[in-house]
C-alpha cells in the first residue's frame, strides 16, 4: 500500500494531497495543466521535497517531515515514465534500458539477459543498437516503460505517457500499457488529460484542481464527474470518452 499525505506551497496555490493506493492498483490522476499532478509524482519519486507530510510504502517511510526522513530518489525504487520520456540521447536503446541495472553493479551477463528479455517483450530487440533519439514516438514510449520496469520498481509513475503519440498509436499503446501495468503488482499512478486513458487503463481515478483532490472514486465514475466539472482543458467530455 502506497500512502501519500503531503503539503507543498506552490507559486499560485497550496498542494494538499491525501491518497492511498493498493498493490496492483492503477490510479489515474486527472486535472488541468499546472494543477500539481506532475509535482505530486515528483514528490513521490523524491525529486521534489514536500513542505510537510508523509509518503510511505507498506508502512516504510519514504518521506516523513516529522522525523526528517527523505529517502533519495535513487533508493526509492520508483519506476518513472516521464512525459517527454527523458531517454538518454547519447545512448542506444539497449544502453537506455540497461542503465538502471548498471547503477546496481550487476554483471554484464546478467544485464544482457534481463535487457534482452525486456526488449524482446516490448518488441524492441531489433532496434537495440539505434540511438534513442532516432526512433519513433511509440518506440520511445516502449523504451521508457521498459527502462522503468527493468529495475523491478516498488511504485510505478507515468506522466502522460501517451500524450505525444498520434491518435491511432494512442489506442494501440493504451491497450499495451494496460496489460503491462496489470502484470506488475505494484501501486501505479498515471497522470493524464485524456478520459479515454482513465476509462481504459485505470482502476480508480482522482480529479485534481489547484493542488487538491476534488473528486475520487472508481475509474468508471469519471464520466459523471466530468459532466459535473463540465470540461477539462476546454475539450468536450463526450468526445474524450467516446
Amino acid at each position: 500500500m502506497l500512502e501519500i499525505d503531503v503539503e507543498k506551497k506552490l507559486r499560485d496555490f497550496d498542494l494538499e494531497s491525501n491518497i492511498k493506493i493498493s498493490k496492483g492498483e492503477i490510479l489515474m490522476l486527472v486535472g488541468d495543466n499546472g494543477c500539481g499532478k506532475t509535482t505530486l509524482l515528483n514528490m513521490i519519486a523524491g525529486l521534489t521535497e514536500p513542505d510537510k507530510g508523509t509518503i510511505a510504502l507498506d508502512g516504510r517511510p519514504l518521506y516523513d517531515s516529522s522525523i526528517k526522513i527523505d529517502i533519495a530518489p535513487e533508493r526509492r525504487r520508483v519506476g518513472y515514465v516521464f512525459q517527454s520520456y527523458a531517454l538518454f540521447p547519447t545512448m542506444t536503446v539497449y544502453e537506455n534500458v540497461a542503465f538502471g541495472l548498471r547503477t546496481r553493479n550487476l554483471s554484464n551477463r546478467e544485464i544482457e539477459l534481463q535487457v534482452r528479455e525486456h526488449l524482446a517483450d516490448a518488441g524492441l530487440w531489433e532496434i537495440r543498437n539505434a540511438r534513442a533519439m532516432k526512433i519513433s514516438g511509440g518506440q520511445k514510449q516502449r523504451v521508457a516503460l521498459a527502462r522503468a520496469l527493468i529495475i523491478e520498481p516498488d511504485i510505478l509513475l507515468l506522466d502522460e505517457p501517451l500524450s505525444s503519440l498520434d491518435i491511432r498509436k494512442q489506442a494501440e499503446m493504451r491497450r499495451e500499457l494496460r496489460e503491462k501495468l496489470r502484470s506488475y503488482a505494484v501501486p501505479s499512478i498515471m497522470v493524464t488529460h485524456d478520459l479515454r486513458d482513465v476509462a481504459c487503463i485505470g482502476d480508480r481515478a482522482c480529479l485534481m484542481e489547484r493542488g487538491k483532490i476534488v473528486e475520487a472514486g472508481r475509474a468508471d465514475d469519471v464520466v459523471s464527474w466530468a459532466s459535473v466539472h463540465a470540461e477539462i482543458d476546454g475539450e468536450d467530455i463526450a468526445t474524450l470518452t467516446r
Partner: protein
Amino acid sequence: MREIALKAVIVVVICLTMAFIALPVASLFLKSSPDAVLRSMNDPAVKDALRLSLTTSTLTTLIVILMGTPVAYVNARFSYFGKEVVDSLIDLPVIMPPAVAGIALLMAFGRMGIVGQHLNTLGFSIAFTTLAVIFAQVFVSSPFYIRQARTSFEDVDLSIENAARTLGASRIYAFFHVTLPIAMNGLISGAIMAFARSLGEFGATIMFAGNFQGRTQTMPLAIYTTMQGDLDVALCLALILVAISFLIIALVKTLTRRMYKNVRD
C-alpha cells in the same frame, strides 16, 4: 530601383567589412616569404615561445576545466544566495582591460601583494615566473569556458537527469554518465575558446609575469619583442598563431553545430 540601390549598399558594406578583417590577415601572408618563415622556425625565440605558449595554454585549459566545470554546473542547476554576485565575478575578466587584470594579479599575488607577501615569507614567489603566466591566463580565459559550460548544462533537460536518479543513479553518477556526455560538445567548445584566449593573452601576462625568453615570453610577447629587431621572426610567430586561430574556429564551429543538433534532437 530603390530596392536595387539598397541591395548594392548592403553588398558594399559587407565587402568593406570583410576586407577590413581579411586584409590585415592576408597581409601577414603577403608580407612574409616562405623561406624566411621556415628559417625563422629554427630561431630560439620562436621555439621557446611556441613551447611555452602551448605548455602554459594546455595547463591553463586543464585548470579552467577542473575549476570551471563544477561552478558552471552549480550555477546552471541551483539557486543560492549570492548567485548574481558569483555570475558577475565570473564575467568580470572579460570586461576588465588586460592591463588592469595584470596589476590586479600583482596586487594579489605579487611579492608585496595581499597573498603574495605571505607566500614570499615562505620562500615561494609567483610573479615573474612561468606560474604567473598560467595565473594570468586562467584569470582571463576562465569566463570563456564557464559561460559556455553553463549554457551547455542548462540545455540538458532536467527530466533526463531526474530519470537517471529514479533509475538508481546518485547525483555524481548521473552527472558523469548522463549529463556530461550530453553537454560534452559544448564543454569542448568552451575549452577550445579558453585555450585560444590563453594563447593570445598579452596584457596581463606582461604586467604580472614579465617578458623573459624561455620562462614567461609567450608567443604574443615574443611577437612584440622580436618585431623591434627581426620582423621575419615576428611574422613567423604571427602566422603560427593565425593558423592555430583558423583551426580553433573550424573546431568550435563543428562542435557548435553538433551541440545544437543534439539539443534539437
